[in-house]
């Protein structure tokens, strides 16, 4: 791939994700927020592809954009959003929150920019094997236990969600 295209795509996707990220937290209508979040997620999937992580990108699209966001939209439609739109959108301590968050982000950026030595390491060569295969091998090798725990977590989450959303307890 030509470096020009890489640069262009990076700035395009990064800009897209940040702009729609801002839209997520600013829109009154939760459906619009959810849409903006979907755009962010898709842009992120593009960034993952640029980082040679195609499998995670695919997972991101299927699970996040196709699964979790549908869940969000589903719930937004179930609850009455008419009223919540008319209410005050930001809470009383919004200014303090904004300052704190900006300070945190500023700190991160400061560290990244001032401490580049940490990130000067040469990027790894693109491996011969496919990314999916490597991830599969690692997931079922080193991370077997964590993988099983994750499945248990999902089971607990399913039961929890069902119990919580049930009408009659």
């Amino acid at each position: 791939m030509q470096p020009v295209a890489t640069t262009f795509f990076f700035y395009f996707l990064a800009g897209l994700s940040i702009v729609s990220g801002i839209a997520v937290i600013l829109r009154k209508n939760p459906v619009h927020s959810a849409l903006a979040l979907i755009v962010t997620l898709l842009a992120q999937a593009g960034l993952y592809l640029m980082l040679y992580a195609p499998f995670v990108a695919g997972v991101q699209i299927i699970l996040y954009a196709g699964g979790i966001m549908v869940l969000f939209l589903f719930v937004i439609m179930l609850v009455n959003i008419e009223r919540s739109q008319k209410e005050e959108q930001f809470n009383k301590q919004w200014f303090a929150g904004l300052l704190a968050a900006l300070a945190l982000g500023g700190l991160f950026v400061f560290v990244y920019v001032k401490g580049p030595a940490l990130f000067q390491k040469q990027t790894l060569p693109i491996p011969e094997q496919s990314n999916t295969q490597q991830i599969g091998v690692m997931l079922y090798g080193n991370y077997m236990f964590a993988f099983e725990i994750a499945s248990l977590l999902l089971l607990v989450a399913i039961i929890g969600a069902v119990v919580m959303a049930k009408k009659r307890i």
Partner: protein
Amino acid sequence: MTPITTVHYLVVAAALFALGVIGVLTRRNVVIVLMSIELILNAVNLNLIAFSRLWGLHGQIFAIFVVTDAAAEAAVGLGILIAFFRNKETVNVDEVDLLKW
């Protein structure tokens, strides 16, 4: 043009993370708060994957675990939200001040 390095990705991730934190701290709508949490998780994922270009695939594995976690969190969070909405007829996070109902 400068080549795109890891730092670029990290800065994007930091920005997204900050946006997510702003959303969590300032918004009153529970749905949007949950979505902001998703933003934060995504920022973390971007970080992990950016680092996985430097230190091998472990970052990607962790990203997958984070996605799993996000799915679980969304399911439970939205379940709580529905239960909350049924009781209080609102999705305002400031109203969640009782620990029981």
